[in-house]
């Protein structure tokens, strides 16, 4: 794109002054809708400090294209330095001591033998830091150690000169427990006489629990809930319904298995605490370390050069962060603390389970009169097991009633996990919608057209409707004679336009022609480095590989935490704004030497050009040499969306083809067609890559992954990847992704996110509906193991005859 400089005004360069006034705006015309379907233009009022409106992708040079990953070479050659690769002079290696039983009071921790172990330089015991709090339950004062609430809970750590010495010494730490009754079964935990994970009710302010319940969510035994949401009169809605589908669905706990485990290297110096972290939020790690150690943020620096994946569990410093920092302070040496795979399964997060009772009432034309969802799920010894998002947000309804309950058990706490609550909720909702269609004798896509007005989803359904794969589907269930039966199923997904305004970037142009962007944002593997390079390339008219991307360091302007699909949507407008402002400064800087007015100059094709033809195009590097200063730079922060009255969702429509072996119960997912939107795709190849990953992760969740806890000992019995089955190459189907390029007119890049909606939300229901199409049997339980499938095939099925 040739950059238009006609908007160049002195005020436009100084965006802060303009923004602080808050009234200096202009009206622009922006592309809205889907090319080939609904594309049109709409007016938006934007601050004058904003850059010119970008045209649609086909008219751009670098945005919307798929250059190779900016850091791809470093990754494939091993040059990329991940946290576990960091080596600092004199660095020590730390190892956790983890609780061996699921529920206990720690009576004593003897570190004497560990401290004497060769190579050991320091031991840290996790103590209960009561601060000013005065506990009213005297029994809690018997120990200075936290209560153990799950096997694998860190209780201490050892730092030594080698990893082996640290592990050996950790094994010598003597922990004396007073075992407490425990419960790891969700159903048993709900019973009145179950062992309590958090004794007493928190509804009585001033008890040992401390509690207070202004929030109005009750605690009864191990159940925290219900969290109730009501819209309209659901009971009346069911009375008004011609058809009601009513079913129970259950889903399992899925543990996090990012390729790189949690970990840090902490280097505590008097003037600065430097922490290399495998994190989804450099800002969150710094904020927590500063808060925990009561340091000014300026004395904490967090660096994430490369990061080996995170799906929601890598926010904040966590125990690894604070323990490594404490050991570094104690020993006067840098300390590396990386979790092993077992610790990763046990202590740093998981996707909660769910047990859902879902009722949907509808009129004969498909109109939904009522949805009622009552769910129980366990987030271990934490909360967060809600799953009502899809029920609340995928379709139109006249009334909605949801009750969500957390059930405490003696297991590791949950953490956010890619689209929290949504794979669980969609598994139930989208199978029930299919069931509703059968009862109404309606086509699956026609019913969804009736109850889903989202214009993007409507286009996506049309793409599905016209696909060869969908056309090959026999709508009659169990039509295949078998024993291996083929079926095709459908599911939609929904996610939300979440943003963080708390992010920004700086762009610099140097006299040698080099251009760089700086932001503390971390690249968790999804490719934000490449995206930022493309933004700069588009602005300056140079190849993405020619710009320098410096991110993952809190020394740079604050970046967004990467979760909830916020990174690209939040950060790229700030980067483009900074790039545009820096480009204006650059042109101002070279204009005198070119005897030109800045408004006559433009940047494209690696050249500085004169609109009036005053001079022949000059290579960018040579033009930069004419700058009247060594460097120009601009910083920009994310500004709010142009039209905050519009709240967008995005998602997709996925179909899966399965082959069900009715003799062995094995499900083989053969093909997936995934049609998704994410606003303006900045780098389609990277978006597709995320969707491929989401589909595979969704298949893995649907068919394989399952945390198993031994009810007799309270231990996880499959806490390693040799026993915790994850989809491998043999289970990966042929995946076809179609992106729905969708413009919403909300920012200077108009980008949205893709991470959450990318396949994992819809996989369970798409496969479930495909299995029903293949066999006529509906499977309402995850994971769909061969045993589950065979059991379901041998059970009588309820009638789904049309009304």
């Amino acid at each position, binding site marked *: 794109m040739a950059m238009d400089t006609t908007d160049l005004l002195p005020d436009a360069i100084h965006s802060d002054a303009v923004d602080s006034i808050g009234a200096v705006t202009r009206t622009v015309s922006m592309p809205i809708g889907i090319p080939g379907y609904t594309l049109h233009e709409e007016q938006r009022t934007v601050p004058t400090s904003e850059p010119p409106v970008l045209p649609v992708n086909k008219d751009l040079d670098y945005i919307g294209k798929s250059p190779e990953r900016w850091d791809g070479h470093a990754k494939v050659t091993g040059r990329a330095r991940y946290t576990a690769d960091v080596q600092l002079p004199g660095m020590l290696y730390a190892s956790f001591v983890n609780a061996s039983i699921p529920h206990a009071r720690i009576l004593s921790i003897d570190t004497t033998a560990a401290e004497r172990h060769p190579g050991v330089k320091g031991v840290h015991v996790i103590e*209960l*830091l*009561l*601060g*000013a*709090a005065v*506990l009213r339950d005297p029994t*809690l004062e018997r120990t200075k150690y*936290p*209560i153990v*609430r799950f096997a694998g*809970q860190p209780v201490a750590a050892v730092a030594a000169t080698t990893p082996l010495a640290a592990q050996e010494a950790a094994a010598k730490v003597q922990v004396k427990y007073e075992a407490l009754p425990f419960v790891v079964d969700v159903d048993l935990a709900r019973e009145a006489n179950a062992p309590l994970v*958090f004794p*007493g009710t*928190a509804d009585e*302010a001033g008890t040992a*629990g*401390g*509690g*207070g319940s*202004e*929030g*109005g*969510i009750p605690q009864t035994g191990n159940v*925290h809930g219900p969290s109730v*949401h009501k819209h309209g009169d659901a009971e009346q809605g069911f009375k008004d319904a011609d058809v009601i589908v009513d079913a129970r669905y259950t889903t399992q706990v899925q543990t996090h298995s990012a390729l790189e485990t949690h970990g840090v290297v902490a280097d505590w110096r008097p003037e600065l605490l430097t922490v290399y972290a495998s994190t989804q*939020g450099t*800002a*969150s790690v710094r904020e*927590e370390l500063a*808060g*925990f150690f009561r340091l000014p943020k300026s004395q904490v620096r967090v660096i994430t050069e490369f990061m080996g994946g995170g799906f*929601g569990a890598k*926010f*904040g*410093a*966590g125990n690894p962060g604070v323990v490594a920092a404490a050991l570094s302070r104690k020993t006067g040496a840098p300390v590396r603390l990386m979790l092993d795979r077992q610790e990763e399964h046990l202590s740093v997060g998981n996707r909660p389970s769910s047990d859902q009772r879902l009722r949907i009432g509808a009129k004969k034309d498909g109109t939904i009169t009522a949805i009622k969802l009552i769910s129980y799920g366990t*987030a271990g*010894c*934490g*909360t*967060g*097991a*809600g*799953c*009502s*998002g899809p029920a609340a947000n995928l379709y139109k309804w006249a009334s909605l009633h949801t009750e969500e309950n957390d059930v405490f058990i003696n297991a590791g*706490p*949950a*953490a*956010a996990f890619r689209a*929290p*609550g949504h794979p669980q909720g969609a598994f139930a909702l989208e199978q029930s919608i299919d069931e509703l269609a059968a009862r109404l004798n309606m086509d699956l896509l026609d019913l969804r057209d009736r109850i889903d007005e989202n214009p993007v989803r409507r286009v996506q359904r049309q793409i599905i409707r016209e696909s060869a794969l969908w056309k090959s589907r026999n709508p009659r269930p169990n039509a295949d004679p078998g024993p291996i039966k083929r079926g095709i199923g459908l599911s939609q997904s929904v996610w939300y336009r*979440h943003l963080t305004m*708390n992010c920004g970037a700086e762009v610099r142009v140097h006299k040698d022609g080099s251009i760089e962007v700086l932001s503390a944002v971390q690249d968790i593997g999804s490719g934000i480095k490449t995206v930022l390079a493309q933004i700069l390339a588009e602005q300056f008219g140079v190849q993405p590989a020619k710009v320098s991307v410096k991110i993952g360091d809190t020394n740079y302007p604050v970046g967004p*935490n990467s*979760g*909830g*699909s916020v990174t690209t949507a939040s950060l790229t407008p700030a980067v483009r704004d900074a790039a545009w402002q820096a480009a204006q400064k650059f042109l101002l800087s070279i204009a005198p030497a070119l005897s030109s007015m800045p408004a006559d100059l433009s940047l494209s094709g690696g050249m500085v050009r004169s609109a009036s033809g005053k001079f022949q195009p000059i290579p960018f590097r040579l033009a930069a040499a004419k700058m009247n200063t060594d460097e120009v730079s601009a910083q920009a922060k994310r500004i709010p969306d142009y039209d905050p009255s519009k709240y967008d969702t995005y998602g997709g429509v996925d179909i899966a083809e399965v082959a069900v072996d009715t003799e062995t119960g094995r499900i083989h997912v053969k093909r997936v067609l995934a049609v998704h939107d994410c606003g303006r795709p900045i780098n389609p190849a990277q978006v597709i890559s995320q969707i491929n990953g989401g589909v595979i992760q969704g298949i893995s969740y649907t068919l394989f992954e399952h945390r198993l806890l031994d009810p007799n000992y309270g231990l996880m019995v499959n806490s390693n990847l040799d026993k915790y089955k994850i989809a491998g190459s043999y289970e990966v189907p042929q995946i076809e992704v179609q992106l729905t390029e969708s413009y919403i007119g909300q920012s200077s890049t108009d980008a949205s996110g893709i991470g*959450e909606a990318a396949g994992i939300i819809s996989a369970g229901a798409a496969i479930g509906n495909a299995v029903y199409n293949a066999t006529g049997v509906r499977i309402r339980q995850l994971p769909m193991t061969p045993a589950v499938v065979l059991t379901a095939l041998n059970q009588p099925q309820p009638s789904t005859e049309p009304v």
Partner: protein
Amino acid sequence: MSATERPPQPCQCLRTRNPYGTSPLNAESWLPGVDATSTYWCLRTMGPAGPDEHYVHLSRCTPSRVCYESSDE
């Protein structure tokens, strides 16, 4: 709790990562965080229990709790 109700001022040590990002401190930033999928932890313990050994949650980490720390402190 209704999503539209204003929650009480939470303890400054309450942390969460919900779909909106990590949101410490002021109550306004917590408004989106009442979602039932939010997981919480305590800055003082780095775990789901507070220093008083009860679980932490937006509805629990209120001024009536003995370990409560005000953001004004």
